[in-house]
């Protein structure tokens, strides 16, 4: 589904990603871990199409297409979803209104008929249950005055509404208490299918108890320095990142 090949990216002349290689197949869950400042969010942003990041080298193929050629909204229409580490506030625009625009533009791009208000609300009701989100929250201005937990839950709700093929969750666990974490993880698990894939970015092992990854990668200083299965996450939990840093330094 997704193939990242020797990806180098920089921002303001500073190289952040220094040769990322990663392949994600349908049905898989990949976790990307790593200390702060490693480039995890940068990778997520580059995949979603944020323009301030310059691609210096390498390629990204998504469903056989050159992902880097597509505008951000075209990537979204193709099924790429990013749950933001820091969701953005849009004053005066309710989540409902925002999502109605998003869902219908996506449907139009895919050659489907837009949903009228009634059908849209029906879909919304179903998905609300999935992440146990309140109607009142969805009527408020998007992310404005939301608590950290509410923002993250709202991201997963949007994911549920947009039914993406490739979801990238950037630190969706940070700022969540254990109950909220379970709800969010539960939502993500329910949305999982053999046809879609998930990349979970986190720097705690905790989330991975609930969203069980097939692969774990450690991103450090702009490179994936180690890959393994779930047990790698536990090892990181026990030993911290220092041994990875030492290994890299020794190279």
């Amino acid at each position, binding site marked *: 589904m997704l193939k990242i090949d020797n990806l180098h990216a920089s921002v303001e002349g500073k190289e952040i990603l220094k040769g990322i290689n990663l392949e994600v197949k349908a049905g898989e869950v990949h976790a990307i871990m790593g200390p702060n400042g490693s480039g995890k969010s940068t990778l997520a942003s580059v995949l979603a199409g944020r323009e301030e990041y310059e691609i210096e080298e390498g390629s990204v193929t998504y469903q056989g297409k050159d992902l880097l050629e597509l505008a951000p909204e075209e990537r979204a229409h193709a099924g790429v979803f990013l749950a933001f580490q820091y969701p953005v506030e849009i004053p005066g*625009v309710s989540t409902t209104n925002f999502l109605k625009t*998003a869902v219908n533009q996506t449907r139009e791009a895919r050659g489907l008929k837009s949903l009228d208000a009634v059908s849209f609300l029906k879909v919304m009701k179903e998905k609300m249950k999935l992440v146990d989100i309140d109607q009142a929250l969805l009527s408020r201005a998007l992310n404005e005055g939301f608590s950290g937990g509410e923002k993250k839950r709202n991201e997963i709700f949007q994911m549920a509404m947009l039914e993406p093929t490739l979801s990238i969750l950037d630190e969706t666990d940070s700022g969540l208490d254990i109950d909220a974490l379970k709800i969010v993880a539960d939502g993500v698990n329910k949305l999982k299918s053999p046809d879609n894939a998930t990349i979970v970015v986190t720097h705690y092992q905790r989330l991975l108890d609930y969203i069980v990854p097939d692969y774990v990668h450690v991103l450090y200083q702009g490179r994936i320095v180690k890959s393994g299965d779930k047990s790698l996450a536990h090892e990181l939990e026990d030993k911290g990142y220092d041994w990875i840093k030492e290994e890299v330094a020794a190279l």
Partner: protein
Amino acid sequence: MSKDDQILEEFTSKEYEHGWSVDFEADEAPAGINEDIIRFISAKKEEPQWLLDWRLKAFKKWTEMKEPRWPNVKYPDIDYQGVKYYSAPKQDKKPKSLDEVDPELLKTFERLGISLTEQKRLTGVAVDAVIDSVSVATTFKETLSELGIIFCSFSEAVQEHPELVKKYLGSVVPATDNYFAALNSAVFSDGSFCYIPSGVRCPMELSTYFRINAANTGQFERTLIVAEEGSYVSYLEGCTAPQRDENQLHAAVVEIYAAKDAEVKYSTVQNWYPGDKNGKGGIYNFVTKRGICDGDNSKISWTQVETGSAVTWKYPSCILKGDNSQGEFYSVAVTNNYQQADTGTKMIHIGKNTKSRIVSKGISAGKSQNSYRGQVHIMKRAENARNFSQCDSLLMGDKCGAHTFPYIDVENNSAQVEHEATTSKIGEDQIFYCQQRGIDEESAVALIVNGFAKEVMSKLPMEFAVEAQKLLALTLEGSVG
């Protein structure tokens, strides 16, 4: 090019939708202004002597006045002798009913999305259509007159209800109030008149639609709304003009009179031609709008969505004379390219327990300049007066300007006056967030801007709100990428 710049580039490339004109045979006055032209206009309208005298007095005063230069706008000197002050589409005779109106005229309004054919009209809106200087049709007149409501063109009111016109004309905006009001008083050619008798709630929205068609012509219309004791009316005003290279002058006057317990809601969606993206052409919009809450417990509410004009100079105001009377001003002003807007309100508190509320949302893009100018004056007698003002500015890019000029005069210590102001920029973050959800840039901007303006938009009557939302998006089309 940074992202913001690209956004700007694209936004500034939008075209004005109503930029066509139709060739009517027109009945025109030669260019220039002098006593003879005023006599010509007055004669054309078969006006009584007192009205001609009133015009001439205003003209005399105007010649002694100076054009105001205090607004934060720049434009070359206007050649007042180069403007035509009267142009009317030629009709064989005065139409008695809609069936007799020139079909070309009806078509012109159809193209603007305004059907004057009553059956086709959205239920609940009566329309008076003014093209260039003359009112061409008023719908739903009969239905309204059963309730004693008078809704007709200004010229017709002069003929049919001279006593009402004489009583209220100039009572809120005196003929010599300011330079442009004086000019209007001298040469106004038509407009709308509306009278709601005591105790009547007008059952439909009343609406005037202004269209400048002829080249090189100024438009000077007057609207007079009188709401008698305990009455209610909601009034809408819309306007467009063709795309022309030269600037055109529009100097209108709107007067509202509210008696005891009366309420008037006046909504405007102003979409005059703003000029091209290099700042060529466009309407100079110098308008005086004022309402008086004369009776106790009366209320006047102004809502405006200003998207057009090259230069806007406009301060819809309320004189709160009656005790417990209320004034409101809700405004969205959008400027793009080289547009300049200096707009706001005056709230003059005279009576006890008077209240006013000002909500102004300015949106600037391109190289435009957008100023809010507002005055809150609490007079000595105004015990317990209250005002709340909120002025927010949204900037798109860094070549435009947003300015706020609040003036507050308090002469009574019991007053409570609050003023809040914010300035923000549309962020790349916000746009990227929308795009990531599948929303293209242009829709993202429209969404963000409409969110910003929501408090004002929600005050518009339904039919207008949808149009206004689209207009906001259109005006800013291309500003973000």
